[in-house]
C-alpha cells in the first residue's frame, strides 16, 4: 500500500539549533515529492519539488534532499518565523492514473 510517513511528529528547537525533518515513502511510480509549509489557519504553501534520487533544492535556511526511500528537510540556524507544520507529499502514478498522498506533517516550534 502506498504510504508517506513523516517524523518526528513534533519538534522544538532553540533559535539557531539546526535539525532535519524526515519523510519516508513507499509508493510505486514516484512522479515527484513535494514539501509544503502550513501556518495555523492557512492553506499549505509550496516550498520544494524533488523528482529523482540525489536531487537537492535550497531556499534560505531550508534544504530538501531525496533518496529512493526518503526525503529530508534540513533547517539551518532556524528562526522563530520558521515555526509551522511542514508537510511532505508524493505524486505517484500507476496504470496511467496518478494520485497525491500527503504525510501527517511535522509541527516545528522554534523558540527565541
Amino acid at each position, binding site marked *: 500500500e502506498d504510504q508517506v510517513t513523516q517524523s518526528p511528529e513534533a519538534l522544538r528547537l532553540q533559535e539557531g539549533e539546526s535539525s532535519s525533518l524526515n519523510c519516508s515513502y513507499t509508493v510505486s511510480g514516484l512522479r515527484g515529492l513535494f514539501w509544503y509549509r502550513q501556518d495555523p489557519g492557512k492553506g499549505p504553501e509550496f516550498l520544494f519539488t524533488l523528482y529523482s534520487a540525489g536531487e537537492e533544492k535550497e531556499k534560505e535556511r531550508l534544504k530538501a534532499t531525496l533518496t529512493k526511500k526518503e526525503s529530508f528537510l534540513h533547517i539551518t540556524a532556524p528562526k522563530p518565523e520558521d515555526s509551522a507544520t511542514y508537510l511532505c507529499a508524493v505524486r505517484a502514478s500507476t496504470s496511467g492514473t496518478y494520485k*497525491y498522498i500527503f504525510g501527517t*506533517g511535522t509541527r516545528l516550534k522554534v523558540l527565541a
Partner: protein
Amino acid sequence: DTAVSQTPKYLVTQMGNDKSIKCEQNLGHDTMYWYKQDSKKFLKIMFSYNNKELIINETVPNRFSPKSPDKAHLNLHINSLELGDSAVYFCASSPGGQETQYFGPGTRLLVL
C-alpha cells in the same frame, strides 16, 4: 489579487443540510483539486479536474459532488451533511497535473 480563493471561509450547518463551497483561481491553471483536512491535520485528496474534466476521484461518499463550470472554478456540493464531514476543505490549483499545487485559504465546515 488572491491566487486561489474559497467561499465561504466558515460554514456552520445542521446535519442533513445541503451546502456548497466555491473555489476560484486566477492563475490560469489547467488543474484544480479539492482536499479534506481532518482534525488530526491529515490532508487527503478528494477530486481533481483538468480543463473541466474529472481526472482523480478518490473514494469519497457520493454525497460529495464536484462541479467545474469553467477552467477557473471548481465548486464542491455536499448533500445530506453528516457530523463526520466536519473538517477544513482546501481547494488547490496547478498549471498541469504534475506541477506544484497552490492552495486556497480553506473553508472550515462544522456540522452540528
